[in-house]
């Protein structure tokens, strides 16, 4: 507070009062301003607050520094340090009957006059007031006054000659004998008491920082530095101190006092004030001369500054509380992050530093953000369904229901996926038919039933159809099962029937019977589709029969009878009324299959656009239809066109056409782009077995992403299942063993010979030395026959199955063996702490650390489990279960 620049101080106990001091002291009361109207005499500090001047004290001229009495006092007792080194207690209250009445007006006078630079009340003993003075050649610069001490007239007048201060003796309020005198022949520029002990005082002296210990005043700890201004202790971290010199702030750790632990970026202008925020840890505010911003340094994320050589991270930012230059600022003692600032012309402003917002998004859709001391959880209002529709939620639920893992009946996976997405249904049926065909095919191969279309099925109908081009074309006129079917041409070839097979219409290559398929559709209640398929197989009677059945069944639509009626009136006369009516009215039918049926019946031979481009008819049915009724050229064109459409749209039904080829990956890529469903993509492409589809980097990318996603959800078991599933289908993905247990004696991997034993499980065989309970004892190194280390808990050599531990009777043993068979395998695994290298059976260790924090080995105080960052995590599946 040099010259006329005002300083500002909050009252330590009256949260609504502050003092502005320049040549006089002005006490203000702060109010919240509800209305926009200003009361007479009040000043607006912010949108919410105004200040009213309560009183002015101009009793103390030549003020250099002010400190507020830390004890609760209604009178606002202040200590004022003057230019001549005197410290005066003064008050801003009106009540003259207060307890501190005796103190008001008391003066503390140093032996030799010089400027008082700083004042600091002891936070523990509020009678102690430390004053820091300029240098005098023979006097002390740090004086600690006891404000309760009685003036001592005997020393003041009797022995010494009082010439110059004769006027001061009047009231007897002058104290000349300090409690402690420190720092001889030195200047003190700043002071603060250390909260660690009542008798520790940190002083910024001329060119050094010194810690004075009043218990032994001849001792002091000091460090030479220029940064001696404005020493201040972090209220939340009592060993951390800030001080400054010109534009640079130094942060000190009192436990490692030799040099600053860090220095903040130097400012071009000299600093005038540095203050820790009292309501928030590690937040330091700094102000430079002629500046309208306050610079904040957030040391929140600083690890303990001692020890590590790494530079701690600091987040620096600036706030601008007002337009004008700031003369001084003061943090509010209790209100969070709040401060008042004062400008050189004494305008004030009330300002709250807005806390940085940190945001965290969990892998399972919940969003949290923190601001100051508040933690907010965000939920989307209203539309809970949008969350359910989110692919991440779906994938999570599907992962839990083991989606993709049904390898027996592959089509069932769409049921595991929730049976709600027709594309998934189509996909899994396609995959099912492909795999079914492969199984059949290999069986046929075994029986030498020839046919070399095996690998072709993977490549999709598009390639199959192409391969049939020109070579194996059989045409024939249909005689039809119905009465009047005359001129409809059907096409047939080996490839076409393979395609029909993949579409699910027929079961086996040469057998064109669609009856099993119709039955299964009837069972599902899919009457319209069944009728359409029957019709497309030129069996109108069967179609009508199906529709009748549908109408009479419980859930069926009665209108089906009407449709059956219309169907039965079929005539192949070109100009009949029936034909005319059907072709116009069919468009009003809601069901695409019914619509397609009439389109088929009313269409000219060879032009079936009404069926082929009825987009709501399943792709497989349209393709099957095309395979039956289009000639090679038409078929190829149609398939080509449809494939491109599917690829563009990312429609999974198109996998039927593309198969698990590059084309399929392209299609899947646009599907993933559209939906983000890496789960389906991963599982689907894994079926692409030995082909190069799996080597496609996009596929690997989806697979890795899905694995990461499972990890992020803490679905570790699911991920393991996925990995197992993956390594079955893609042996190249099987990870190489990365960890070996090696023998202490010969240094060879102890699993080296075990890996030769076929029943050892994949992947983890190197851990479980005795994976099989039947092979009960492998307790020595297979290489050198020396014993393996002992488990720290059961003291049995490693490799011994847990279930055969002594202690339980033999009969129990067998029960345990069957019951915990699966668990026991893991219980037998080796486990050890990477830090202290103690360990034992995994099961023993787990149960030990359930109740203990320290290593089971006596005299080892390693906190092994706490060092294991993942050891304490719980898989999400078990939490949900």
């Amino acid at each position, binding site marked *: 507070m*040099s*010259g006329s620049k005002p300083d500002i101080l909050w009252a330590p106990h009256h949260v609504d009062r502050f003092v502005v001091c320049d040549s006089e002291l002005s006490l203000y009361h702060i109010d919240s301003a509800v209305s926009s109207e200003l009361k007479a005499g009040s000043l607006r500090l912010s949108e919410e607050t105004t200040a009213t001047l309560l009183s002015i004290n101009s009793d103390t001229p*030549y003020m250099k520094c002010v400190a507020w009495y830390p004890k609760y006092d209604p009178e606002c007792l202040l200590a004022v340090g003057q*230019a*001549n*080194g005197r410290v005066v207690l003064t008050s801003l209250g009106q009540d003259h009957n207060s307890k501190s009445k005796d103190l008001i007006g008391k003066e503390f*006078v*140093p*032996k*030799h*006059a*010089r*400027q008082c630079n700083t004042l600091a009340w002891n936070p523990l003993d509020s009678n102690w007031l430390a004053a820091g003075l*300029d*240098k*005098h*050649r*023979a*006097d*002390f610069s740090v004086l600690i006054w006891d404000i309760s001490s009685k003036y001592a007239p005997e020393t003041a007048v009797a022995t*010494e*000659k*009082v*010439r*110059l*201060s004769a006027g001061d003796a009047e009231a007897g309020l002058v104290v*000349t004998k300090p409690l402690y*005198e420190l*720092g*001889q*022949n*030195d*200047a003190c520029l700043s002071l603060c008491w250390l909260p660690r002990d009542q008798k520790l005082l940190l002083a910024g002296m*001329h*060119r*050094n920082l010194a810690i004075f210990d009043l218990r032994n005043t*001849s*001792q*002091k700890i*000091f460090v*030479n530095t*220029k940064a001696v201004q404005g020493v201040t202790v972090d209220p939340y971290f009592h060993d951390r101190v800030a001080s400054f010199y010109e534009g640079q702030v130094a942060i000190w750790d009192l436990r490692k006092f030799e040099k600053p632990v860090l220095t903040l970026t130097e400012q071009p202008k000299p600093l005038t004030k540095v203050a820790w925020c009292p309501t928030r840890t590690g937040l330091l505010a700094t102000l430079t001369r002629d500046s309208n911003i306050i610079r904040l340094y957030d040391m929140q994320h600083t690890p303990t500054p001692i020890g590590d050589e790494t530079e701690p991270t600091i987040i620096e930012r600036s706030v601008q509380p007002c337009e004008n230059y700031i003369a001084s600022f003061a943090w509010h003692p209790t209100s969070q992050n709040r401060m008042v600032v004062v400008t050189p012309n004494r305008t004030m402003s009330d300002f709250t530093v807005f806390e940085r917002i940190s945001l965290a998004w969990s892998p399972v859709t919940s969003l949290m953000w923190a601001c100051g001391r508040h933690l907010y959880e965000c939920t989307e209002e209203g539309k809970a369904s949008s969350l359910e529709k989110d692919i991440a939620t779906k994938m999570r639920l599907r992962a839990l229901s083991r989606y993709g893992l049904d390898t027996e009946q592959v089509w069932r996976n769409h049921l595991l996926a929730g049976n709600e997405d027709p594309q998934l249904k189509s996909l899994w049926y396609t995959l099912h038919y492909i795999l079914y065909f492969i199984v059949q095919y290999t069986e046929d191969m075994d029986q030498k039933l020839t046919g070399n279309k095996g690998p072709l099925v993977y490549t999709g109908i598009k390639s199959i159809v192409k391969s049939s081009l020109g070579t194996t074309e059989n045409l024939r006129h249909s005689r039809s099962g119905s009465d009047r079917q005359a001129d409809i041409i059907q096409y047939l070839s080996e490839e076409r029937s393979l395609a029909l097979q993949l579409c699910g219409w027929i079961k086996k290559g040469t057998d064109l019977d669609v009856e099993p398929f119709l039955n299964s559709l009837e069972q599902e209640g899919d009457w319209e589709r069944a009728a359409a398929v029957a019709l497309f197989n030129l069996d109108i009677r069967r179609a009508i029969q199906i529709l009748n059945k549908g109408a009479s069944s419980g859930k069926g639509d009665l209108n089906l009878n009407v449709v059956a009626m219309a169907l039965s009136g079929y005539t192949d006369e070109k100009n009949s009324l029936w034909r005319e009516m059907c072709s116009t009215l069919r468009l009003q039918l809601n069901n695409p299959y019914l619509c397609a049926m009439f389109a088929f019946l009313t269409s000219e031979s060879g032009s079936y656009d009404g069926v082929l481009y009825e987009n709501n008819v399943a792709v497989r049915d349209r393709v099957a239809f095309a395979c039956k009724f289009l000639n090679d050229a038409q078929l190829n064109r149609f398939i080509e066109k449809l494939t491109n459409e599917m690829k563009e749209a990312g429609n999974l039904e198109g996998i039927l056409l593309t198969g698990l080829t590059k084309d399929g990956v392209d299609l899947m890529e646009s599907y993933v782009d559209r939906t983000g469903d890496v789960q389906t993509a991963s599982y689907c492409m894994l079926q692409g077995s030995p082909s190069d589809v799996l080597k496609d980097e996009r596929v690997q990318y989806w697979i890795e992403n899905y694995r990461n996603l499972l990890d992020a959800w803490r679905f570790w078991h699911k991920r393991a299942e996925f990995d197992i599933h993956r390594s079955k289908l893609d042996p190249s993905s099987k990870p190489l063993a990365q960890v070996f247990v090696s023998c202490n004696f010969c240094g060879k991997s102890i699993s080296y010979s075990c890996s030769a034993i076929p029943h050892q499980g994949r992947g983890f065989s190197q851990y479980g030395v005795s994976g099989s309970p039947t092979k009960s004892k492998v307790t020595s190194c297979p290489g050198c026959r020396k014993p393996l280390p002992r488990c720290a808990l059961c003291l049995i050599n490693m490799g011994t199955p847990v279930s055969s531990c002594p202690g339980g009777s033999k009969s129990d043993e067998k029960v345990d063996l069957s019951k915990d068979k699966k668990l026991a395998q893991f219980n037998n695994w080796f486990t050890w702490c990477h830090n202290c290298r103690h360990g034992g059976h995994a099961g023993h260790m787990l149960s030990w650390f359930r109740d203990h924090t320290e290593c089971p080995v006596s005299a080892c105080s390693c906190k092994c489990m706490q060092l294991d960052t993942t050891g304490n995590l719980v898989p999400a599946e078990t939490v949900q279960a």
Partner: protein
Amino acid sequence: MELNLSALCLKAMRDNPAALPGERFGMSGCRKELPSSEHLSVADATWLALNVVSGGGGFSSSQPIGVTKIAKSVIAPLADQNISVFMLSTYQTDFILVRERDLPFVMHTLAAEFTILRVVNGETVAADDFGVTNGFVKPKLVQRPVIHPLSSPSNMFCVTSLDPDTLPTVATLLMDVMFYSNGVKDSVVGNEDSGHIRFFSFSLIEGYISLVMDVQTQQRFPNNLLFTSASGELWKMVRIGGQPLGFDECGIVAQISEPLAAADIPAYYISTFKFDHALVPEENINGVVNALQVSQAEKH
């Protein structure tokens, strides 16, 4: 204890009655600040200021202040090594000026008892050892009788300071006191023969102001402006030297300060271009003069 070094050079205005009537005074400042002029005579050396700072734990007793305090530790050893020193006491501290060319000897002499630091751009750094070891003889413990004539003026002095912020308010007064008052006083009060000396010292070192003036001058300043001690102590002066002392003779400060230190009498010591001045508490003046005269008598 630590010793700070900063380079200063010692200059003095040539006695020029026309420009500066009567009073001689020493100025310490940076050489570059003053233009060279025929009126300015400069002692032919760069002087470095030593300042004893109590870094390491300090002094328990506060009574023997000023030169007395460092008489044994600094001044006597330097005198023993025949190093010429120049003393400047201020309100805040004491400076010992030594010639730059003597620095290696100074450092070697003082290294035993002090940590010597060099001030570079306001930052204190450890000074390099100059590595001069040859040419040192173990000094003989010799008596140092006072060689130069002494005089003790009758007026009493105070050593004081003031807040630099208030300097503008007394600027004209200071100028008056320094440059224009003495001629008038000369005719009214008389001269040195009456035992009255005109002595006014103003120094501004590192932002700190130090003033030494007699009581009459002090009364011309406004009340409460000057920093004074609570006890209001006053000082009397012992002036050393009949002829200008020059810059080469060594041991002068030691001759005065050692008897004072022996008697535990606090003192200020101000060397000027021509003479040296010691200030001692008024109640001690008789004892001091006697002691010094005894010492002086030993010479003969």
